[in-house]
């Protein structure tokens, strides 16, 4: 009896760390990463891949160089990756803020008023599926300025998810909340600000999150044609035919995308109030 108990206790304490799901997932992740890097390194050294494919070690060395020397400036074609990142982030910040300032109020209006919904929905339906890059020549023609055009493209790209999610959230506010407001005799404005908007907030934030994701996708594509920014950095390295730096930029774009998304994931959690327990 005691021996068996002792055994169970030993087993438990011995496997405690490995039993944890997160620890296991981390181990699996590290293992797969190791195999991937090894395969890459060996494959590249044996010239199994396309011609000029850099090795993993070279790419990591480059990454280290860029991360430790982010800010230098030798003219637009040789700009530190930190500057490029800040330029991209600034364009996204301005364009995205403009889009949100348009999309949230318009979404609320369209969500509240059936007439507004019917009147404006054709525009949304027509414009939503158009790739934001299709607006690029028009932007360049109107603004004759790459900076403004970049912001314009981001604004157009990030309006739709916020707009449609806000309208959906507002139109689908639980009718019980509205009944409470009505039985108390609340004014229309009070109902909008104290009931409808807070009730729709989870949807509004989800819309903002999707819009942010799209902005970040689009800015890289747009910048290839605009000069400066992370997208241009990639384009420039393509012209230099230096692949390691392209891989470095892809990695950095991915990391920044994760950070931006997590900020919104956190906001979503703040306004869920027990609705989703994830």
């Amino acid at each position, binding site marked *: 009896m005691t021996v068996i108990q002792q055994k169970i206790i030993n087993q438990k304490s011995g496997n405690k760390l490995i039993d944890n799901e997160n620890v296991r997932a981390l181990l699996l992740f590290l293992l797969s990463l190791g195999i991937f890097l090894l395969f890459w390194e060996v494959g590249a050294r044996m010239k199994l891949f396309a011609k000029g494919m850099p090795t993993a070690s070279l790419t990591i060395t480059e990454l280290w160089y860029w991360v430790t020397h982010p800010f230098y400036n030798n003219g637009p074609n040789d700009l530190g990756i930190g500057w490029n990142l800040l330029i991209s982030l600034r364009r996204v910040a301005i364009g995205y803020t403009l889009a949100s300032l348009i999309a949230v109020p318009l979404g609320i209006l369209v969500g509240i008023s059936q007439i507004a919904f019917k009147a404006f929905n054709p525009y949304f339906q027509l414009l939503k599926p158009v790739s934001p890059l299709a607006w690029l020549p028009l932007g360049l023609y109107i603004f004759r300025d790459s900076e403004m055009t970049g912001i314009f493209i981001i604004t157009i790209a990030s309006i739709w998810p916020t707009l449609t999610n806000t309208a959906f959230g507002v139109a689908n506010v639980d009718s*019980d909340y509205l009944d409470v407001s*009505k*039985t*108390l*005799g609340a004014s229309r404005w009070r109902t909008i600000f104290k009931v409808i908007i*807070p009730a729709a907030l989870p949807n509004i934030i989800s819309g903002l999150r999707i819009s942010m994701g799209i902005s970040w996708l689009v800015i890289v594509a747009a910048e290839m044609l605009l000069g400066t920014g992370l997208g241009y950095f990639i384009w420039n390295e393509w012209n230099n035919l230096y692949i390691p730096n392209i891989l470095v930029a892809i990695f950095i774009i991915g990391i920044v995308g994760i950070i931006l998304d997590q900020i919104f994931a956190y906001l979503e959690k703040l*306004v869920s109030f*027990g609705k989703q327990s994830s």
Partner: protein
Amino acid sequence: MNTSFSSNNHAVTTDSATDAQISLRHISKVFPGRGGWLNKITGQASSDFVAIEDIHLDIEHNTFVSIIGPSGCGKSTLLNIIAGLSSATSGEVIINGEIVDKPGPDRGMVFQSYALMPWMTVQDNIKFAVETVYSKMHVKQQQRVIKENIQLVGLTGAEKKRPHELSGGMRQRVGIARALAINPQILLMDEPFGALDALTRGFLQDEIERIWEQQRKTAIMITHSIDEALLLSDRIVMMTKGPAARIDEVLDVPFPRPRDRNTVENHPAYLKLKKEMEDHLYRETRAVEEAQIKP
């Protein structure tokens, strides 16, 4: 409640105690069907649905009235019309001599689904009601009203909690406090305890009985529970099955107040009333089921 405006209210009600406070005059509600050639082609057309027909009822001041009837007969429809949330197709609701067709703070509503705002704390939910109705009241006084009502329903200590952190019974206490905090003349409750387990339900019934003895507001409650109706009501309105549901009979409940479960159940009239209600519900529910079996 011991706020100044509630005593005013009592003065008014005793003055005109002889008249009915709420008069339902021949109320009918028809939900329009879907007509039109498009619906006919797609086979989605439906004819008009008469939910309730010719409901006529007077309710005196300070009475507690329960409405009971087979499910789907139109009880919620009727209560929503009294609340002003939906309008009658014909007939009118007269409260204190005036026709009402809108919701108003003279009527406080308790919802079966609690209908608490999840982003507001317990206190803020009640505050929302008080601020909306008494926007000109001094903030100090508003806070007092909120505090009193939280105490009244036994929620002291939970003020800062959000609804999702509370059990169903506690949530409905918030719902009741919110309805009472605006000091309505009339309290409307649509199956207020329908979603609660038996024990919690019992607690809340006792709570309602205690509060009602204190405040004696006119109250209309929809319920499916015979015992609940007998414990709380002065009069019980029994409705027939729908469509075109009517009032079948109104029972007077003679039990002395204040009441508690034991004295009520030992009252000589208890068994007879209970039997009468059971027979009625059995008959109507049976008829509903038969109507569903027949094509």
